[in-house]
């Protein structure tokens, strides 16, 4: 699904991301963990062609993401509030994303159904602009919009951050559902080790831009991760 080759991003002489090789297979759910400044978001931005790599390439389905825009059709993503069009209402935004993927109004309503619990009656029919929602609710809108098109590849940066405990659990179940039912390939970063282990079957640890560990999730993973991050 995704292949990273020899990827490097350098800011003012500091190497922020340096990944010689990484392959992600279709249907895999990948959890990306690492401390602040490890380069998680930068890696996502490189995958989404939002920043120009200093060196190397990212291939989605064997096509370089910087050269062709084919990946946009099957990729849903939400990194931060910059992905939202903040002067639209939530409905208008979903409608816009839906239109881009040729979804009818009915389709959109239907695809938002799994999100009803997560939305907790705070998102739809609110008569307010996205910029006026709280951070947590903005995040919910972004995640729903990213998943709206049933993308083959779903990229989320810190989806659990800013959410209340109930929403975190609901989101976790929702992501598991998407992974099992729709066979989505997922790339999720999180600081919450237990959540990410429950959702993802493969964990990557990033440190100072380098990929230091690549493991399959099993019953010992949480302990291993905790050991790793205990300083």
């Amino acid at each position, binding site marked *: 699904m995704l292949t990273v080759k020899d990827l490097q991003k350098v800011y003012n002489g500091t190497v922020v991301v340096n990944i010689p090789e990484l392959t992600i297979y279709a249907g895999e759910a990948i959890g990306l963990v690492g401390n602040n400044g490890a380069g998680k978001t930068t890696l996502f931005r490189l995958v989404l062609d939002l920043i120009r790599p200093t060196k190397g390439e990212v291939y989605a389905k064997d096509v370089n993401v910087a050269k062709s825009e084919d990946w946009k059709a099957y990729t849903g993503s939400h990194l931060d509030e*910059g992905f939202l069009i903040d002067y639209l209402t939530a409905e208008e935004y979903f409608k816009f994303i839906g239109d881009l993927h040729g979804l009818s109004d009915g389709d959109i309503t239907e695809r938002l159904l799994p999100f009803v619990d997560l939305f907790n009656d705070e998102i739809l029919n609110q008569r307010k602009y996205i910029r006026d929602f709280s951070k947590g609710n903005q995040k919910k809108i972004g995640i729903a919009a990213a998943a709206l098109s049933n993308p083959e590849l779903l990229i989320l940066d810190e989806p659990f951050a800013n959410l209340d405990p109930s929403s975190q659990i609901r989101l976790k179940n929702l992501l598991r559902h998407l992974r099992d039912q729709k066979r989505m390939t997922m790339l999720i970063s999180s600081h919450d080790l237990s959540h990410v282990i429950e959702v993802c079957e493969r964990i990557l640890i990033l440190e100072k831009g380098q990929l230091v560990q690549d493991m399959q999730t099993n019953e010992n993973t949480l302990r291993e991760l905790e050991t790793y991050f205990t300083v």
Partner: protein
Amino acid sequence: MLLTLLTHQWKADVRSSVFQKGLALNIIMGLLILYFGGIFLFLGFNIDDILLKVFPSQDPVAVFNGGMLYYFLMDLFFRFMLQEMPVLAVQPYLHLPVGKNRLVHFVLVKSVFSFLNVLPLLFMVPFMVSAVVPAYGAGVASVWLLALVALTLFNNFVLLYFKRQLAAKPLYTLAFGVVVSAVMLLDYFDLLSLNVASRAAFGQLLLQPWLVAVPLLLVAVAYTFNFRFLKEHTYPEELQVRKATKVSGSNIAFLSRFGEIGKLIELELKLIWRNKRPKSTLVMSAFILFYGVIFYKEPYMDGYAMLIFVGLMMTGMAMFSYGQFVPGWQSTHFDALLTQRISIYQFLKAKYWMFLAVTLFAYLITLPYGLLGYKILIINTVALLYNIGVNVFIIFYFSAYNTSRLDLSRGSAFNWQGVGASKFVMMLPLIIIPLLIYMPFGLMDVPYVGLATIGGLGLLGLIFQKQLLQWSARWFMKHKYKLATGFRQSE
């Protein structure tokens, strides 16, 4: 698709928080637009008569044509100052299945609807109808108009291109600026007549309408250049004209000797230095220092009221324009300030000393105007005393009403964020009260007693500054919750 993007743009403008906040502000904006629009329309319909009166023997169309090149050069200058880069708006679309070509077209097409492009039409069209059509017929006249519109758009795209290059290749932009200035200078020294060139070019156009192809081609070329450049650089970090700047402005050692107050001043200086809006506010207020050049001559020199006004503005403008938003400058971290070990009294005292310093500085800079007459010297000194003795506290009084959050990263020209009705109300007493104080003395023909009174009030304020500051702090305390709540509402 392009249409959807444009409707989004429309929504963004209509729903922008600036419009939704103050009704009073909208009315004032509306009146301003009507006023300027009206002036342009009036000019458009009457300019042929005016030109006939000024240049009786010449064809008004030819005179108008002669001015066109000047106009387009001026237009370039204004665009350089005012035109914004419509760029970051594409960020929310980059990860969506919207083609890059479309987005780039969108960014470019969007720039066409700027008021800088629409406003000239307001006088070009009426002039065409009232002067060009009767002389040359509707067909040729519309070709003429088309050529002018094309050149306006050419300016639009050329400037967008060079302004964008400013970040990547400053030399390009500099070279462009040098060429434009060189042309202006050559014209000024009569080595090259823009007037004649302009007349010839636009005159030919009226005789041979097919020449309109030239400006149209120019637009196409400029558009293509922009398109290519943007297509290559659709990455948000490269599109931003202003890149993530390096940390500038180091610690100012001598300020730390003044304890807490010194630290607060240092903090505020960094805030000004490192953010666009406060910086441009101060830079713009520096232009007021040239007021003297305009006003220090007959007939103003005979009276006093006008000179008092000029003196107040020149010494106080930096304080007025920066002070009118206090404490909004700290709006993003106001909560942090309230929870730190800083008292409101210290906070205001730091501001007070800053205002004192900057006002004194403006006074010193404008001292040379005193060579034009000792009267100016006296009046400016009086204005200085009044500004730092009385006006400071008026600003502090009104600051308790500044509950709107400011985005420091945007420039201050045409930026109405945080500008509410209270701003207009507040600017008035700063200027009007001293003039009112002076008025009876002026009427009684004892101007120097009036000046002494104004200056005396200022001195009183200086003497009782501690008490006044304490009173301001108490006043501020009373309003701090309201302020903090207002600042927490982003946009």
